[in-house]
């Protein structure tokens, strides 16, 4: 095949893939959106309508259709010999099959599997959890890399789903991988790059707290709780925004560290301090929003911050200095001279330049209200009744879908970029060949732009070998340059 023909095919293929990549998010956005009209039932079954609901994750549920709106399906299912009404988000549903009434008059047993994201000890609609009983609990399971797998665009869709579900309790379960731009980190490490993602955390906090507090479509504000299994590095800011914080027994929070050495070696010290100061103030904002002592955040962020604690009748009292008596515990020293953590200490988890909290210390310091390994335990610690219902939110699927799309976008972009770089005009070549080559390059650039625009917030610059925001700006100029080259070429003919 001639090179030009191969290029042309690649361009067409790229266009097709680009179009596919752009179609998927639009569809997903539609599933997540809701408005008042959409919440109105469009089907209100007065007679028995047996249905088989096939979920996107492969699960199937048989039951009787009660009502159906644009976003929710309400069905009567039978669990453990008892009938119960439950709702499913349409975002989770692949298909609703209407069964003949005579074939299965009674609602059959649900075959639904427990969601893998939550260690549930109770089914979504338990035998003692008839509809209308017990608080409705929405579990927002946050996994993967914070800033990539959890970012503002999919969280806006999750927010819409929360609106639909109207839960009484919103459990934000933090179970992130400790990675930065795809690079794994050990739990004993710290991620200075965490501060780069603080804006993402702030946007999500604004959405889940500030916007929700004034959103009239959520008349009853859910009780917000952070449930931490692993929130390290950039994931460590957001959990602070909740008043209620709980840990799992293996829970870890921290891994931020060393804000005091940000911008080291650049410019003047006073400007570096300004930059550090404004970042720390934003970090403290998370703690203060949740009503937690900002000193804990300071100890997590600055290596030169000294923090000790003493306990008076179990109540922690924080001290901005080294311990002065046996009943005071050093949390972090100033990390200077011989107090700088040695590699031997860091490896053994004994470093004290910056703070990372486990479940036990978080509880002793009053940051955590308790330790819970299952949702049952958590509800119990929170003082909620045991007949709570886990609402079938679409959050897990929304976030998973976003991760898949981001990975796909990176792959597509890398391929398009390579194709762009491969476009060449082999000599001897005339005006027509040069024109075709420029046209192909323009076409590839135009396919790259929407990928970056849509997924810039989550794309890993390491994977695409470019910073998305910079590249978006560059694309327009490259196109202008190509146009100018074409014009010059035309004039010189």
């Amino acid at each position, binding site marked *: 095949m001639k090179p030009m023909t191969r290029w042309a095919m690649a361009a067409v293929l790229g266009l097709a893939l680009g179009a596919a990549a752009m179609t998927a998010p639009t569809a997903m956005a539609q599933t997540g959106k809701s408005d008042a009209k959409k919440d109105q039932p469009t089907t209100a079954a007065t007679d028995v309508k047996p249905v088989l609901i096939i979920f996107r994750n492969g699960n199937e549920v048989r039951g009787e259709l009660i009502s159906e709106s644009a976003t929710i399906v309400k069905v009567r299912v039978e669990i453990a010999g008892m009938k119960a009404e439950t709702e499913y988000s349409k975002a989770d549903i692949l298909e609703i099959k209407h069964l003949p009434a005579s074939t299965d008059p009674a609602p059959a047993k649900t075959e639904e599997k427990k969601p893998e994201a939550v260690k549930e000890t109770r089914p979504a609609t338990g035998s003692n959890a008839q509809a209308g009983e017990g608080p409705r609990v929405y579990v927002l399971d946050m996994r993967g890399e914070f800033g990539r797998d959890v970012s503002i665009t999919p969280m806006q869709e999750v927010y819409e789903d929360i609106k639909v579900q109207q839960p009484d309790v919103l459990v934000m379960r933090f179970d992130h991988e400790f990675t930065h731009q795809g690079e794994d980190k050990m739990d004993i490490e710290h991620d200075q790059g965490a501060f780069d993602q603080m804006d993402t955390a702030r946007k999500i906090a604004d959405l889940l707290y500030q916007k929700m507090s004034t959103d009239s479509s959520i008349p009853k504000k859910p009780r917000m709780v952070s449930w931490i299994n692993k929130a390290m590095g950039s994931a460590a800011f957001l959990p602070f925004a909740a008043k209620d914080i709980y840990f799992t027994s293996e829970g870890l929070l921290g891994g931020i560290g060393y804000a005091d050495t940000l911008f080291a070696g650049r*410019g003047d010290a*006073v*400007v570096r301090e300004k930059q550090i100061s404004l970042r720390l*103030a934003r970090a403290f904002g*998370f703690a203060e929003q949740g009503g937690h002592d*900002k000193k804990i955040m300071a100890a997590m962020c600055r290596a030169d911050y000294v923090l000790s604690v003493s306990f008076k009748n179990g109540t922690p009292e924080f001290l901005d200095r080294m311990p002065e008596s046996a009943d005071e515990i050093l949390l972090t020293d100033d990390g200077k001279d011989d107090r700088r953590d040695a590699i031997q200490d860091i490896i053994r988890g004994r470093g004290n330049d910056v703070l990372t909290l486990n479940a036990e210390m978080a509880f002793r310091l009053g940051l955590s209200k308790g330790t819970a390994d299952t949702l049952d335990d958590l509800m119990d610690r929170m003082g909620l009744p045991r007949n709570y219902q886990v609402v079938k939110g679409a959050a897990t699927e929304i976030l998973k879908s976003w991760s898949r799309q981001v990975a796909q976008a990176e792959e597509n972009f890398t391929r398009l970029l390579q194709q762009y770089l491969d476009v060449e005009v082999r000599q001897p070549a005339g005006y027509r060949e040069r024109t075709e080559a420029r046209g192909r390059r323009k076409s590839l650039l135009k396919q790259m732009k929407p990928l970056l625009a849509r997924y810039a917030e989550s794309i890993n610059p390491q994977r695409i070998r470019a910073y998305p925001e910079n590249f978006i700006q560059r694309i327009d100029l490259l196109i202008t340059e190509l146009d100018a080259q074409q014009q010059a070429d035309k*004039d010189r003919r």
Partner: protein
Amino acid sequence: MNRFFRMMKAATAALVVAGAVLAFSPEAMADKVVLKDGTVHEGTIVSETETFVRIRIKVGGIQSILTIDKAEVNKVERDAANPATGSTASAPAEKAEKDKTKEEKKAESDKVLNSGATRVAILNFGAPSEWGKDVNDMVGREITAEDWRRAIPLLEKDKVQVVVVRIHSGGGALSEMEPFQKLYQNEYKTRFRTVAWVESAISCAAMSPWPIEEWYFLPNGNVGACTGWSGNLVAVKGVQLEMVIALMEKASAWGKRSPFIMKAMQIQVPLSATIDDVTGEVHWFQDNTGQNQVNPPDQILTLTAQDAMRYKFGKGIAATKEELAQVMGLGEVVWAGQEASKYIDDQLKKSDSAHRRWQTVYQQYGIQIQFASQAQDADERGGFIGKARRYLEELRSLFKLNKNFGMFTGIDQEWFDQQEELIKRLSRR
């Protein structure tokens, strides 16, 4: 002083109203006023006319009456089961409303203007994060003193009494700071009770409204980090630094607060404070002699909302405008000045989009000039020069819109003259 008495009178009146309505049962609070911004006020509608609706609400356990301009309202939902809301007579009442003459409507409008409810306008100094999209917020570029000056007649037209400057900005050009300070001191504070409500006020966004005396915070709010710099983190130094420090001393005096606070936000100096046990008064020190170290000597100060409250820099923390009205001690409130608010918001968005365009056009202009310079003959050059001229004209019109666009790319009137000359030279070649 008159304003003080007026406020006291209004506050007392509100207190009386609040006391009177405590006896109402919660069941009666079933009417809804849905605003255009999506806010819903639930309670009991006290009265409704063509121009306003008054609703008795309960916020944080305290009941008060809100008077809302109909211009703000999307819909009014009355509880049919609640005869107290006047819904039983709604049909004749609506007809009567329609039959009213212009004079009657005007009289009604005047009535609400003179109702005793405080008319409060919220103007955005930078895009609030609740907008949920990235609108740039640079002082001097998207946020300009000139726009805020133009908002004054709109505020006056609507008889606004209180202006809330809601701040969310990471700073900007030092050159815009003084115009803003003078504007707030000489124009706003003399006309309105002017208060700051801070989401984030960093650098120039803290220094520009510094003459404002009353500061309130969102729960995660912050203010500070006012060190001037440019380029690769190079600090403003020498005479220029002294001038900025002196300017901020004056602004501190206007804001009736210690200059030590701002200085600790600008340069690396210690700041400590002692809070008088009896009076609660805060005494500031530019060293470590105070009981509480507020800023260590080697750091730059940014106050969080809690810090601000602890040291009485802040007057209150409020997450919503209703909470703000409460912590400000306002009883009955009308959210007014929509035209001014809209004007400021529109200018923010316009400037943001214009500046994005500016960046693109500036670079595209450069490309055309580059190709024109390399062109072999007059025809070829002419095509590029034509495009360059169009881009230059667009730049010029954007520059007219906001001269500060040029500041961030080193463009001034002289640059335009030079470019005209360059184009002429290229054309003659």
